């Protein structure tokens, strides 16, 4: 089994970056790889549920749907508790299935699971 970490630190809209990272996560899962997506820094905004329909509003793909798909495909998605706290985001506001971990625990994932780390 190949382990992949997708490390997302950009916000979901304004750049193609986050969409591109989540796209790789889905494709990796569909090829049988073990995937962990880390949301840290402004990447935690990607985990918020209840985003407006972005295709209708700013003509960008809905990352909320991508997150839900990744979780449904048994991908593991984690968000940095400190990054959430600094941005005033309550873990209750996150899409169901996202784990909230400390920065230290996230570093453990990168070290223990991150044979291949793709950062966005």
């Amino acid at each position, binding site marked *: 089994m190949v382990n992949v970490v997708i490390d997302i630190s950009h916000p979901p809209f304004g750049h193609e970056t986050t969409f591109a990272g989540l796209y*790789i996560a889905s494709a990796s899962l569909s*090829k049988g790889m073990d995937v962990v997506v880390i949301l840290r820094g402004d990447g935690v905004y990607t985990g918020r549920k209840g985003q407006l329909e972005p295709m209708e509003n700013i003509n960008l793909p809905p990352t909320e749907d991508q997150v839900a798909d990744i979780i449904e495909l048994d991908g593991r998605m984690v968000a940095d508790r400190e990054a959430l706290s600094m941005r005033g985001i309550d873990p209750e506001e996150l899409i169901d299935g996202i784990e909230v971990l400390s920065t230290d625990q996230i570093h453990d994932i990168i070290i223990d699971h991150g044979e291949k780390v793709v950062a966005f």
Partner: protein
Amino acid sequence: MVDAESNNQKILSMMLFTGPYGSQDADHMCRIAEKALDKGYGVQIFLYGDGVHAQLKGQAPKIFFNIGEAMQKLVKKGAVIKSCVRCSKARGYVDGEFDEGQDRYPSDKALDEVKIYSLYGFIDMIKSGDKLITFGSS
């Protein structure tokens, strides 16, 4: 894909997410790739996002390192370079449907040395690579 098993090589996979010349990412990537080839690594590169602009034919920078020529040289030395079809289509590089015979999407604007391919081309590079380096994506 680099045929590592028959050569008993270590494989270096690389991804480029930014275009050439606006930053040194493409420059660094090409130079590291060449050094890795010289050290005996197999090298496979995936162009993603704005990184697909590195495949443009006819690049002619006045003072910068020519990324198009560098990539042609890398392929000549054995590197495999693919680019994302979704990103290439969005940026006007793709002229038609996948060509099974050529094993790539057709393009008049992209270098012949670069295969425009589905994202699974990169997933295979992640799987098969011993090392993975990404440029310009964070």
